[in-house]
């Protein structure tokens, strides 16, 4: 813990992610055929869908690690939630931008009040709120508790937001674009899509590893700055923050 240099596992993950992205580029631009109706435009799917998938994966991780933090009070769960939320917001925004670039030529408009688009936009706003809450409190433990509550409640809100906008559009049938419907997608397209999903997931894991290392270093820097003032060794402060009784330690904000 606290090493500045990347571990070898992290480096390997980075190279794997890069290789998978290269494979996605080849699969989506060269190997997969153009669509019968959309032509070349369908290739946007191979980055748009993986980005949207990552957004939901990242926020599910925030939800799980928020619950884990509230149960165990270990700072590592808070760092995990924070890292995942930042990456999730990035990929939600990316999915929306890519989706509207795709929407312009296909639907004739950058934005339509489609239930999925609307839910994704609300999702982005909820997690921007989450990140804003993370900047509020002056004590790390309080910040961790407050943001964990938002991480839990925000995720519970998502299905009901989606249901409300689906009904709002008066669409009671299934999704408008059945991407994985058996007959509607050619095997090569499916392969390209799955390569994209795998590549983006690797990118997520790599970014998480990177962000978690930064989070650990931040915590260590705070502990090192604090140690002479409170007259206790760095390791003791760090392990206290990991422990369940960290609530008593009033430490100034990190970062």
């Amino acid at each position, binding site marked *: 813990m606290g090493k500045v240099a990347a571990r070898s596992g992290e480096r390997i993950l980075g190279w794997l992610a890069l290789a998978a992205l290269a494979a996605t580029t080849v699969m989506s631009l060269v190997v997969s055929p153009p669509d019968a109706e959309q032509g070349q435009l369908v290739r946007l799917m191979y980055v748009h869908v993986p980005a949207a998938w990552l957004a939901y994966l990242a926020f599910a991780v925030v939800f799980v690690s928020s619950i884990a933090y509230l149960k165990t009070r270990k700072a590592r769960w808070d760092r995990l939630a924070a890292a995942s939320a930042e990456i999730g917001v990035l990929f939600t925004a990316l999915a929306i931008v890519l989706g509207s670039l795709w929407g312009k030529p296909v639907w004739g408009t950058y934005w339509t009040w489609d239930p999925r688009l609307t839910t994704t936009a609300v999702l982005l706003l909820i997690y921007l709120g*989450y990140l804003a809450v993370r900047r509020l409190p002056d004590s790390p433990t309080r910040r961790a*508790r407050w943001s964990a509550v938002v991480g839990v409640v925000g995720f519970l809100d998502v299905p009901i937001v989606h249901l*409300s906008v689906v009904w709002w559009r008066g669409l009671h049938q299934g999704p408008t674009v059945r991407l994985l419907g058996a007959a509607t997608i050619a095997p090569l397209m499916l392969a390209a899509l799955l390569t994209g999903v795998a590549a983006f997931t690797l990118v997520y894991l790599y970014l998480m590893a990177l962000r978690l290392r930064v989070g650990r270093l931040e915590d260590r820097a705070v502990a090192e700055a604090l140690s002479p003032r409170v007259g206790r060794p760095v390791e003791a402060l760090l392990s206290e923050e990991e422990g369940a009784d960290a609530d008593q330690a009033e430490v100034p904000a990190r970062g």
Partner: protein
Amino acid sequence: MSLARQAAVMARKDLRIEVRGRHSLSAALPFAGTLLIAFGLSLGPGRTLLQQTAPGLLWLAVLFSSVLAFRQAYQTEVEDGALEGLVLAHIDKAAVFLGKAVAVVVQLLALEAIVILLVAALFGLSLGDDPAVLAGAFVLGTIGLGAVGGLFGALNESPTARESVFPLLVLPLATPVLVAGVRATTVATNGGPGGAGSWLGLLAAFDLIFLAAGTLVFGYLLED
């Protein structure tokens, strides 16, 4: 004391403060009025457009002014360190949440009664078509808002939260209340398409989820 009794004591305390000081309604009501006039000026004066958009404008006015009411609900606790007393008091934290939520719901219902009458007068919204659905939409919607506000109002302890973060957090979370409330109100007033049953059901589901979640997690926000 049981949880319900403790929550009732909290709610009574908050409502007594509001009745004596009127801190919340004295800010929220003029704000709602200002919004309605601004909506009228930006969309009017054509009668048809105003009538069509009236349910949406009504709920927007309620939603935005509810933010002021939530803020005020915890403002009294932050002043004079009353919150520490509340944390130390030998009561269930969930009772604090439920009590705050109930008090805010009562205040908002009073606010909404006036706002509805204002909208009926200003935008020509007809109220007589289905009063039961209208009342149901507002009661259920307000319980949902009260649950969200009672839960995250505790963040107002931090001065930065009061200014910007709180609305940024609460308004997106309340999306289902806005959507379902407006649709149910449209059905109740203009006789819009379809029944209001599913919308009222959605509001009730939202209420249950947020009341349950709030009861479970509210303690983590206060514990210091």
